């Protein structure tokens, strides 16, 4: 009884046993799949940096035609919703403080008079910058609205502006919807969270319950045990990624440009890298609790530095170097390239190789740790 068939049979049995352990408890079955569904739906809607119906207040102290036209443009953009009309400047502070509006547009007296007289007419924009990214976006939108207003005004009144039109087109995401970015990132992130935890717990659980030593006295080699522990986690991770993928394509109707085959090869490599990290944690932890905490302590930087919440290009150089060992960074990039840009396997090689590198460090490390902890 040796050779390849026996090896495969032992590995298959171990995998089956491991899957049963994971799935036998109804609570853990629910907990592995329901949250992924709920989170991807919810975050698909929640994660938007685009303004939609942002509340604002208007203080028009001029009441002229030009002011009315400017306000009509602000409201016609469909991005802003007026929730209050103020009567004097002392009303500004209370409404901004209370967080009722994102900004106040203050059109001072003599606005139209100055504009007609060829002077520059100031309009004050008071933004609630407690969330500076929303405030910045709003300021950007308003800047565009005002410059279009100016261009039209000068055309009508013979001012000295240069007629220049910017034709904007966007590749891979024609309407620049944040959701397309978020959902594709979620395919990698949501499955990573649980794959890591699952793998980290698998060996730690046996150790805590004392069954790991029993496993070692079976004819299974340490390599077989490790494969037996990895494959089920990879399968669960791929199923979770598939769930998010289904929601992205069927529910949010984000068109998939690349091939499913390429995407799954990419995800598989990513899962192997995650499993390597999970097993290494598992080997270092003395209990399930430790495994969970170590995973968690590691997971937060992995997610935050992956480029999902803020772009990696905005980070300081030292931090950018640090992201080189973050598998989530490659996974998000890779999934987006295949999904949105439609690139083939050859192009994502630049992301696959680092992931293989991470796996080729963590898996042997885990194997070494298992052996050396138990001797």
């Amino acid at each position, binding site marked *: 009884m040796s050779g390849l068939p026996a090896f495969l049979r032992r590995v298959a049995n171990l995998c089956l046993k491991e899957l049963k352990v994971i799935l036998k408890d109804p609570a*853990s079955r629910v*907990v592995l799949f329901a949250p992924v569904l709920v*989170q991807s739906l*919810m*975050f698909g*809607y*929640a*994660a938007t*940096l*685009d303004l939609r119906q942002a509340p604002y207040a208007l203080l028009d102290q001029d009441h002229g035609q030009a002011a009315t036209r400017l306000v009509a443009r602000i409201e016609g953009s469909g991005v802003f919703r007026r929730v209050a009309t103020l009567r004097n400047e002392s009303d500004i502070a209370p409404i901004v403080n*209370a*967080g009722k509006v994102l900004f106040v547009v203050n059109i001072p007296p003599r606005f139209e008079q100055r504009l007609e007289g*060829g002077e*520059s*007419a*100031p*309009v004050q*924009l008071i*933004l609630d*910058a407690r969330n*500076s*990214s929303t405030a910045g976006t709003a*300021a950007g939108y308003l*800047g565009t609205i*005002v410059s279009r207003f*100016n261009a039209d*005004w*000068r055309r009508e009144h013979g*001012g000295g*502006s*240069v*007629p220049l*039109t910017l*034709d904007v*087109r*966007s*590749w*891979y*995401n*024609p309407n*620049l*919807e944040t959701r*397309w*970015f978020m959902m594709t990132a979620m395919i990698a992130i949501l499955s990573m969270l649980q794959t890591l935890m699952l793998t980290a717990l698998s060996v730690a659980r046996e150790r805590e319950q004392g069954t790991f030593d029993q496993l070692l006295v079976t004819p299974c080699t340490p390599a077989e045990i490790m494969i037996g522990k990895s494959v089920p986690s990879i399968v669960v991770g791929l199923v979770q990624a598939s769930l998010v993928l289904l929601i992205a394509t069927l529910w949010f109707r984000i068109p998939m440009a690349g091939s499913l085959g390429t995407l799954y090869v990419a995800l598989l490599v990513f899962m192997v890298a995650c499993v390597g990290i999970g097993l290494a944690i598992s080997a270092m932890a003395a*209990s399930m*609790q430790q495994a969970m*905490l170590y995973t*968690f*302590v590691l997971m*937060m*930087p992995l997610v*935050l*530095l992956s480029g999902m*919440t803020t*772009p990696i290009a*905005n*980070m300081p150089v030292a931090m950018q170097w640090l992201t080189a060992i973050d598998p989530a960074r490659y996974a998000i990039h890779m999934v987006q390239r295949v999904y*949105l*840009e439609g690139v083939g396997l050859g*192009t994502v090689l630049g992301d696959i190789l680092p992931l293989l590198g991470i796996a080729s460090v963590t898996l042997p490390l885990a194997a070494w740790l298992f052996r050396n902890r138990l001797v």
Partner: protein
Amino acid sequence: MTAQKPQTRGAFLRRLTALVRKEVKQLLRDRSNLMMGIALPLVLILIFGYGLSFDVKNAPLAVVMEDTSPTAHGMVASMRLSPYLDPTLVHDMHRAEALMLERKVNGILRIPSDFTRRLALGDAHLQLILHGADANTARIVQGYVQSALQSWASPADAGGAVRLESRMWFNEANTSTWFLVPGLIVLITTLVGAFLTALVMAREWERGTLEALFVTPVRPIEILLAKIIPYFGVGLIGIAMCLVAARFLFGVPIEGSLLLILVVSVFYLFVALGIGLLISAVTKNQFTASQVALVASFMPALMLSGFIYDLRNMPLLVQGVGRVLPATYYLETLKSLFLAGNLWPMILKNCAVLIGYAVVLLAAARAKTRKLIG
């Protein structure tokens, strides 16, 4: 009954102190708890303070100069003045598209060969192609290009135009660090309170050590208090580290009262502890507890509290979910206390909400624990 009271209270305190001492010892014995309580906040402070930023600077842009007139060059030169853009000249669309495919640039600005001629005729067009995979960055870059071109085409000092005077209240410099740091405090408090507590308690349930405690004279409430107190302490240390970093490392102003920040943090810490206790009492299993805690604490606090994504832009249903989360109220209060000052109506309202949550969650955890002895 009344006569016995002082004695009971003395016994209560003695038992509680003994239990707390045991819990603190257990907490200190395991390195992983300290990693979570002390090392994770430190790492997060560094990442949030130095690593995360929404402020796009020097966005790389490929400029295809099909028109080499001085006018076109002058325009590109004016774009170079913007600290937000980093234009690189390329000779043809081919090269530009290659840069785009490698994601080396955020966009391509194409200046067509008839640009100068058509500018004289009064109808010039420029083409901007954005890399849309990161939609938010793409939109920011579009804004930068638009405003750079605008100020080249019609300088602000030319008359007869509306001049927008933007003022960023509460964050004049508009640095994202200032609004990320209050969010960080919410995240850390949630992690220590809910996640750590849920894991530690679930372990006791799973191993049956909690039931073992029930047969001793200690009462469930004493067990719960003894569990809460050390994690409460760890949570406070995390909050204190964040406050020190916020003030001295990142220069975030503290416009409101420091005392109020502490008070509202204590309320929220109770809420988080309540969530943790409840999760463990319901699941009684480490694996399930860890998954539920992950789903119920970290991700929602990151995504739905209004920390990164403004609640006001979300669809009503998702906004509703955000409004149910206690983290949302804590975050709103913290952001205002840091950046705006003591806005009493909001603070009182949010504190009332948090106290309500704390009472309900702790009572539920207590009820769940009591039921199981019988």
